[in-house]
């Protein structure tokens, strides 16, 4: 089972078995988008997130 550490909040994230390079996953703790940039071992990095209009 592949696990990675979120680069934003250092949460431990378990990847599904069929994860692929280039896939975007959402950190279940802090909600950032992470791009899978490598496998064996799995590596992720922050993916650019669209800044939606929010609040005011």
């Amino acid at each position: 089972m592949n696990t990675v550490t979120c680069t934003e909040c250092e949460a431990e994230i378990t990847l599904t078995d069929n994860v692929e390079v280039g896939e975007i996953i959402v950190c279940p703790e802090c909600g950032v988008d992470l791009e899978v940039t490598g496998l064996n071992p799995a590596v992720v990095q922050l993916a650019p997130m669209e800044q939606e209009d929010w609040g005011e």
Partner: protein
Amino acid sequence: MVSVSIIGGSGYGGGELLRLLLGHPQVEVRQVTSRSHLGEYVYQVHPNLRKRTQLKFIDPEQVEPVDVLFLALPHGQAQLKIDQYAALAPKIIDLSADFRLKDMALYEKWYGQPHAAPGWPAKFVYGLPELHRAEMAAANYISGVGCNATASNLALLPLVKAGLIDLDAPVIIEIKVGSSESGAEGNAGSNHAERANVIRTFSAYGHRHTAEVIQELGLSDVSLTMTAVDLVRGAMATAHARVKPGVANKDLWKAYRAVANENPFVRVVKEQRGIYRVPEPKIVAGSNYADIGFELDESNGHVISMCAIDNLMKGAAGTAVQCLNLMLGWDESAGLDFAGLHPS
């Protein structure tokens, strides 16, 4: 079944206790008092309880011995009759400020007069499970918590517990509150046409709940600024502090996550998308959750820590029932299963 009674059941704190205790699987509610609604059905005052109970309000002087006695009186009343109440029940949970502060000098400073039963506060565990869970199993007396104090204490708890801020540095807490905080009595300023639509800073500094933050977290320079907004339930604390040098975003994540993991009713809310990215009182209304979150300005170490609660639940009756559960060795969440509403 454990038998309980409530003194002060027509008020907002007492009414909320009643709602929770009527739905609690291990509790039987025996008596509920109100002098001004004597003889009325409790659902005539708390219409949400219609079809839930046929209890009527009785006189406080008619309360009979019971396993656990809940007190939900205005400030200053419980201390006058605590010996009488203690004779009625081996265990007491009090919602008021009367037994929260342990240092009688601190009490007198913030409440403006000496305590009427100075021997009693020391017998009470301060009623916030997130700070005193372990002591509760052995306790007979548990005090209530201030609603604004609770929002403040839970906003700061991760920072203090993980040692991320200096306890002597200034901390400013801005609190926005709904109208149920002031109880069922009301006053000129709570008349709807005057109270609606307000953003009213009714206490810039010096609020009494400050003493509970000082006592519980050990802060030395802390102020609470209270602003009333147009909401019935809810207290939202925004605390401003400076982290110690070197503390980064990841350290905060660890600290907040740890507190949420250890406490069933604390949740971290810090999202990057969608509408609900930060703690909001309306989401926890009616529930016992405290939602916490933070933002760190890494350029200068300014941390903004937030906590949203329902003042009548996590800030009063909900926490009191949580304390009951801990005191009696029950599931900490018993009777506290309502999730809150969305939308609301």
